[in-house]
């Protein structure tokens, strides 16, 4: 076998670990709530419940919500919440010529959105196939395609708010896409409460946009820079939180946006706002604020290593992964405590939002030996 191609190894050592963040994805069996209702004389347009796809669908979902809000010909709108959905919705409304006030408890830096991994994963726990129905698949595709176009306008911007990197997957055996057929031993289903019982209930839509999203290619041994015999490479789009958040906030304020620090406790309080058109974007918090118990918590966590600018790529092995971004290396361990791959079921129904460092340390220990020692580009 010839010399392996050189790839600067990531330093996946514990001394590099500077943060462990945990957050809850707001999964709704039927997909995000994009419906409208009136509270007193106020129109409320919902835009929440995007599961693990909030970042990825943010522009398309904002387009839908703002479109509905504009049907009443408002001159100004209120946006409730300042995570990625709220802030993007506010900017989309401004680009449509509206005067926008965001009411939120926190700016984006302290929201759950900032505790995501920040990569383009538009069908991650976004809905369950059956309750979402075929119509949602069509809507999803529109939202995903529009978001993709919008993200592309940020490529090459100062600070690289959006970027592509090589994403390597390695294995002891040939790599195939994992399928989750329905397990007949599981007789419970997502009915009645919307809580999924097995992987086969989740909706998957990524096939619909594979004409634009880079797909993995198998690598020959000469192209494989890692210690394991099988490898694939694809190109992954990801978001650098710091510069992306800065870009959105800068546009919001430059276009005359107003931010009001405020927490709401009951839907009725929205009727007291001066804006009579309100777009509701509180994500998981809508479970309590709007009493939407169809929101299922799905816990997830990420470890963060010191940024390593010389190694901008991602590596995945057995559902453990590292993704090196400008704002740090994201470490994920998507196996359960006994090392089993639960797929999309990992974290379902779990609303414990305190981080647990052990699985992150485990992922680092497992991934570090996969690099060829001493390799430097």
């Amino acid at each position: 076998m010839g010399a392996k191609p050189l790839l600067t190894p990531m330093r996946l050592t514990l001394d590099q670990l500077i943060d462990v963040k945990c957050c809850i994805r707001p999964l709704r069996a039927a997909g995000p709530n994009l419906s409208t209702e009136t509270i007193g004389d106020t129109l409320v347009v919902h835009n929440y419940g995007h599961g693990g796809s909030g970042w990825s669908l943010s522009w398309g979902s904002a387009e839908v919500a703002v479109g509905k809000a504009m049907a009443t010909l408002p001159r100004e709108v209120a946006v409730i919440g300042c995570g990625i959905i709220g802030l993007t919705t506010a900017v989309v409304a401004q680009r449509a010529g509206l005067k926008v006030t965001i009411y939120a408890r926190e700016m984006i830096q302290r929201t759950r959105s900032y505790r995501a991994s920040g990569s383009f994963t538009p069908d991650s726990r976004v809905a369950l196939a059956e309750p979402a129905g075929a119509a949602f698949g069509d809507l999803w595709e529109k939202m995903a395609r529009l978001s993709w176009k919008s993200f592309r306008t940020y490529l090459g911007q100062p600070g690289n708010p959006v970027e592509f990197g090589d994403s390597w997957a390695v294995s002891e055996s040939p790599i195939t896409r994992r399928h989750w057929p329905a397990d007949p031993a599981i007789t419970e289903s997502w009915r009645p409460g919307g809580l999924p019982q097995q992987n086969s209930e989740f909706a998957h839509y990524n096939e619909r946009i594979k004409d634009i999203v880079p797909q993995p290619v198998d690598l020959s041994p000469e192209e494989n820079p890692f210690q394991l015999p099988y490898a694939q490479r694809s190109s992954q789009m990801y978001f650098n939180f710091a510069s992306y958040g800065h870009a959105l906030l800068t546009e919001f304020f430059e276009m005359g946006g107003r931010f009001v620090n405020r927490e709401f406790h009951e839907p009725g309080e929205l009727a007291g706002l001066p804006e009579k058109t309100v777009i509701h974007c509180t994500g998981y918090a809508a479970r309590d604020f709007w009493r939407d118990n169809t929101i299922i918590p799905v816990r997830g966590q990420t470890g963060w290593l010191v940024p390593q600018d010389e190694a901008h790529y991602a590596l995945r092995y057995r559902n453990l992964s590292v993704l090196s971004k400008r704002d740090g290396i994201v470490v994920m361990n998507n196996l359960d405590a006994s090392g089993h791959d639960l797929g999309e079921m990992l974290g379902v129904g779990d609303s414990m939002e305190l981080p647990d460092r052990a699985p992150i340390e485990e992922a680092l220990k497992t991934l570090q030996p996969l690099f060829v020692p001493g390799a430097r580009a």
Partner: protein
Amino acid sequence: MSARLFLLAAVLVLAIAAVEPAPNGTAQGVYTAAQADAGAQAYAARCAVCHGADLAGTWEIPALKGRFIANWGRARLSQLHDYMGHAMPQFAPGTLDPQDDSAIIAFLLRENGAPAGATPLPIDKAALARISIDPVVPR
């Protein structure tokens, strides 16, 4: 003010006090010290794991001191009680006892500088709805 007018005013104040209207703000002493002590224990057992023994919260988790009063400043105690009842603790929502909710609120009020009074905070929603969360003078 003449002595007569003063007397009249004093009688009026006493008359109003005699019918004991429900206090309408947390500045008026709406919980007892013993209730806040019980709340401190419940807080330590159920809340401190996330919000911290010192109620300071974290970057991700809301503090229950300081900004807490601002966040809930327009609210009624019934809303806070209700929220705790269905949303907290986040990892096991709906598992707090209503008595504990009231005790924990008493503890939070004390920690945020609201005075104790002679009557414990009730669990009755209508009674709680008559009490607003008042601003406090920082210590």
